[in-house]
């Protein structure tokens, strides 16, 4: 009964999974930075990604700006938005003992953004259609969609950028240090607010990139964000906290898993498979599949 399974089909599913998974990965990297420095579960991540997708859509529809040319505009705007979200919403709450407060603020923000988008742009799904939307690049007998490939390239480049920033710059090192031990970081003179602002700016900046990648490849509606947040959490749980590369890889694993399960079991169930895997990981290996536990000194 599986005679329709050719190598080509499997490979195509695999590639689609990877390409979509990188978007989860991008969101997961942002979550990982925000969680790492502030222990905030930023559930509004997905909603912000959709907001950015709408920005990309409107820049394209109203001002005829090509989605790929809007990368610097949206990326920068998203970073500013991220810094603003920290300063306006989380700066006060981060200091409080009760971590539920930050979680609930994130939930409130998600609610706000989702419904704001629904009111402003109607709940109807949107998608961007350009001259190259349906073009594809033949690679070894497979057809890879141009826009998805671009999404993949954008994700790879921004991951590399974030990694370089964290490893090579002093501020990036300060972000890593603060994620590890905020008290020790303060004692060497690292201001938590500055580090947190940067973590948020990068995290939301990545939402901008993911939003552009999403808007060029898939139709989206205002309420799609919540599921996206959950998927990013799953990617993060798979990859483990504290590793940029792990988060990306977690996203790719999840994307591949979904791509295959939606083909073999049927579309809607793919979500259940992801959440099932999520629960299993939470139960049996909460530190993440890809992380060897680091001993604390």
């Amino acid at each position: 009964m599986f005679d329709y399974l050719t190598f080509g089909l499997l490979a195509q599913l695999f590639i689609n999974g990877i390409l979509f998974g990188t978007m989860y990965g991008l969101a997961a990297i942002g979550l990982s930075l925000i969680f790492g420095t502030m222990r905030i579960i930023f559930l509004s991540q997905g909603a912000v990604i959709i907001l950015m997708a709408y920005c990309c859509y409107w820049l394209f529809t109203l001002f005829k700006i090509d989605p790929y040319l809007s990368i610097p505009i949206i990326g920068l705007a998203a970073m500013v938005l991220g810094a603003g979200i920290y300063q306006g919403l989380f700066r006060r709450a981060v200091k409080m003992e009760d971590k539920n407060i930050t979680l609930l603020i994130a939930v409130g923000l998600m609610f706000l953004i989702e419904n704001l988008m629904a009111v402003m742009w109607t709940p109807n799904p949107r998608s961007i259609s350009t001259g190259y939307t349906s073009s594809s690049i033949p690679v070894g007998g497979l057809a890879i969609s141009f826009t998805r490939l671009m999404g993949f390239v954008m994700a790879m480049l921004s991951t590399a950028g974030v990694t370089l920033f964290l490893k090579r710059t002093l501020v990036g090192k300060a972000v890593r240090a603060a994620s590890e031990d905020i008290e020790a970081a303060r004692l060497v003179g690292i201001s938590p607010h500055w580090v947190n602002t940067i973590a948020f700016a990068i995290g939301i900046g990545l939402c901008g990139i993911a939003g552009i990648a999403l808007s060029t490849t898939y139709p989206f509606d205002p309420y799609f964000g919540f599921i996206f947040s959950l998927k990013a959490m799953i990617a993060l749980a798979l990859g483990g906290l504290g590793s940029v590369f792990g988060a990306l890889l977690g996203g790719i694993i999840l994307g591949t898993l979904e791509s295959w399960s939606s083909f073999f079991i049927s579309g809607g169930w793919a979500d259940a498979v992801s959440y099932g895997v999520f629960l299993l990981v939470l139960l049996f290996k909460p530190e993440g599949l890809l992380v060897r536990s680091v001993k604390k000194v």
Partner: protein
Amino acid sequence: MKNLKPITSVVLATLLLGLIPFVSDSEKSYLVYFLFLTFCHIVLTQGWNLVAGYTGQVSLGTHAFFALGAYTTAMIWRADLFSWENYYFDPVTMILSGLVPVIFALAIGIPLLSKLHGDYFALGTLGFGEILKVVCIKGGQFTGGPIGIMLPSSVYTTMRPHYWTALFLAFLATGVVYFMTKSRVGLALVAISEDETAASSSGIYILKYKVLAFAISAFLSGLCGSLYAYYLFQVSPEGFLILRWTLYPVLMCVIGGSGTVVGPILGSLLMTAVFTVTSIYLPGIHPIFSGIIIILVMLFMPNGIIRLWKKGV
């Protein structure tokens, strides 16, 4: 003797509220519907309060247990499980609708609570809700898919039984929370939310109490779901498995003051009023307000209304 005062006042208030359907026309007046909704919110809010306010664990799975209760009621009725004449407000059906969520709460609660702290518990319960949603949408004939299960609405005569049942459940939920706080169990729960390590070293078997609180919360949510199924006569993912049923109780509890007995009641009353008014006068955009209110409350009043005048409690 002093402790009897709040009890008597709550009992009196409940009895007085019970008289309202005799005074106000339950079919035409908005008051009865408004109070019905408020009581439902109180049930869910007290359930969440029991877990979050007293053990410090944030559950984001209220809607899942609420829906499980509703689906249980709908399925028993549809399958004619006991070959009875009447399943409408049938106590056995309703209690079973409370117990089914308890089974699930135990199944996911024991592993989640024994391994995970705070953040992961919230995500785990949220993930459970999402799985349930997929199962209900994709469940075919068993769950009725996206349309859900339709119940024979011809049995509906008046709003009165809904009102009284909701009032009773709200009273019950408040009573449970009150009892839990006064008993040894309650002291253990407070100890858990205050300092987990200290509580465990003083010999309290944390997991047992956390799971107990989580299971009771699921029971209350399931009962409320069953009641709401009798009100809507259609049990669908869109009516029950939506995040609203988790977020509203959270919001109401925190606004009123989590970890208190009266706070959730105040919060439910206030927020149901706010949501009702905004949905009448600002249709379409009122969900935006819920978002803004959640954020503002968390930023400026994270301890709730009740603690504003009960400083130091």
